[in-house]
């Protein structure tokens, strides 16, 4: 069963097209990753799906309701955590929870139960009276997530929930996302961190408002990358990078820490072959070379570079 079906969703701001005929579907209970560079149109898409922005054309069904015709009903089945922290910094933790609970029509025992749950997941038990603005980033994000699902929505939209959060907090945030998904909540999440995309059951990638790839991580790696990728080490890494870019048998190349990843055209199969060619053409000594399985990052770099 599909929770979200987007059908040629388009948003224009004046003459600028922010989201360009994007179609996809999200299954119930899955963690759906929505990836793209800055300004690719992720937030704009989410806002349309949440009924915050009206699509210029196209439509989407969210929880079975049209975002164009039944925006009111859509609001009853979704939770939304925006890219910017949007709880009240000048309210206490408890006041924020009570306010949003109240706005969703929760009160009495059901509110109390949800409040306890949020305090638990955000590790804020006993800190109800702390001003929200004074909490550390990771805690704030968990509080925001808890508040976004206070009414147990079928679908929750998370717009870059882990940006600017330390790795440990990010890890525990993803555990939360998983437990939500296990309870049957559909999670639609955007992120910049590609390693996080590996946690998603399905992924779409958009660039400049256009959908350029979709599928699960395994599919993306096998479907979009047919040629070999080599990881190369060398003392002259930067020079190697610069010269390799111009070579006819190199598809794309990018730096990964103290190595470079180099994707070749189909004519090259063997590491030794590549090593010889590179060393003889550039005169730079290679200290290590091996074939590696592509990461999502390799896939995206390939897809985004390939477009240029």
């Amino acid at each position, binding site marked *: 069963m599909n929770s979200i079906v987007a059908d040629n969703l388009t948003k224009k701001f004046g003459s600028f097209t922010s989201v360009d005929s994007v179609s996809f579907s999200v299954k119930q209970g899955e963690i759906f990753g929505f990836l793209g560079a800055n300004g690719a149109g992720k937030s704009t898409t989410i806002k349309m799906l949440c*009924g915050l922005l009206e699509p210029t054309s196209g439509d989407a069904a969210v929880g079975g309701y049209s975002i164009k015709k039944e925006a009111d009903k859509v*609001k009853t089945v979704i939770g939304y955590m925006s890219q910017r922290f949007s709880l*009240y910094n000048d309210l206490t933790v408890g*006041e924020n929870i009570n306010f949003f609970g109240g706005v969703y*029509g929760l009160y009495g025992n059901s509110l109390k139960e949800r409040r306890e749950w949020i305090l638990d997941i955000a590790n804020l038990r006993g800190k109800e009276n702390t*001003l929200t603005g004074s909490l550390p980033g990771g805690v704030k994000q968990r509080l925001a997530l808890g508040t976004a699902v206070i009414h147990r929505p079928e679908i929750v939209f998370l717009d870059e929930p882990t940006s600017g959060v330390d790795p440990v907090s990010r890890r525990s945030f993803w555990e939360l996302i998983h437990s939500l998904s296990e309870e049957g909540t559909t999670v639609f999440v955007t992120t910049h961190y590609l390693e996080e995309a590996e946690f998603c059951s399905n992924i779409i990638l958009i660039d400049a408002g256009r959908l350029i790839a979709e599928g699960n991580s395994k599919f993306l790696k096998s479907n979009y990358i047919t040629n070999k990728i080599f990881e190369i080490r060398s003392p002259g890494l930067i020079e190697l990078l610069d010269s390799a870019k111009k070579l006819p048998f190199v598809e794309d190349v990018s730096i990964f820490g103290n190595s470079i990843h180099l994707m070749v055209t189909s004519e090259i199969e063997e590491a030794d072959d590549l090593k010889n060619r590179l060393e003889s053409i550039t005169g730079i000594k290679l200290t290590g070379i091996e074939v590696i399985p592509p990461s999502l990052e390799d896939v995206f770099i390939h897809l985004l570079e390939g477009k240029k």
Partner: protein
Amino acid sequence: MRTILEIIKKEFAQFKRDPKMFGVILVAPVMQLIFLGFAATLDVKVIKTYILDNDHSDRSAELVREFSSSQYFRIDGYVSDYDELTKVMDGGNALIAFVIPSGFEKDIESGKTAELQAIINGSDGNTSSIASGYAASIISSYSNKIMLNKLELRGVKQLPAGRITADTRVWYNPMLLSRYFMVPGIVGLLLTVITLILTSLAIVKEKEIGTLEQIIVTPIKPYQIIAGKLIPFVIMGFISVVIVITAMRVIFGIEVRGSLIFLFISAFFYIFTTLGLGLLISTITKNQQQAMMVAMFGVMMPMVFLSGFNFQVENMPEAFRYISDFISLKYFLNIIRGVILKGSGFTDHIHDFIMIIVLGTLILAISILRFNKRLE
């Protein structure tokens, strides 16, 4: 209803933590009252005065001394004929000029009514009406003095009974202070500041920090958001009106002569306009700074200017007078001044009251429609 209450509760929890808000609502009104109230008298303390003395007598010199020794008139010069006088007046160098005709002393000594001409620059209606009031009171006390002197010269020590004295009276403002005109106006001004500027800021702030989005994705209805955001400012507005009216009494000794209830009902309908405008500003601006600028310079200042807060509407250019017919503050000021100073009530202000309701309902309705549209 419950949802609206939640928002109101939240709004007050935020006020509680915002010392600025308390300043604006509790302290600023009193400060403003004191500042504007005292400033209002300052600007008419010095009245630039010219004299055209065609009599050159002891009496005429004595009269001029009466003026110059009062704390209000400053004799800036003498002119010798009407042509010169016209130049001085046209150049804006004199607010008032006294023309003492020849034969002034003779008339006084012979017991006839002596005449004196006062020419007033009426371009600032407020100040000139005050100046003419001062002039009238100085002249009448001078003539009393002459009369007493004369009686004494005749050996009469006591005032004969049944003597008729000229009693100049300026209505509604018996002490001839423009403060009386200004201070009640401040009540209107403050209510405007709180309900117009603060509402627009409060809504734009939520837009700016993103919490408005977070509220809009909930199943809450736009009217609930609007009511929840506006009602706290209505309450705050009324609190500060009460503070100002109390302060007005304590500091300036001005009491409300008419019906407070009528004043509050009018205020209630008046803030339809200001809340509406505040809401409207929040839909056309992106951040608090912009909202502040638009609210202050785009709305407040023209509104205050056109309402006759500090200039009398009658003295404005014709075009402005027509525009001022659409300014609810004008009608509200009429009511405030009427109720506070004259003790007038509903029957005296039916027109003002109807205009306030009509304009307020119209503006608020338009703003709500626009705000709703924006949310969708």
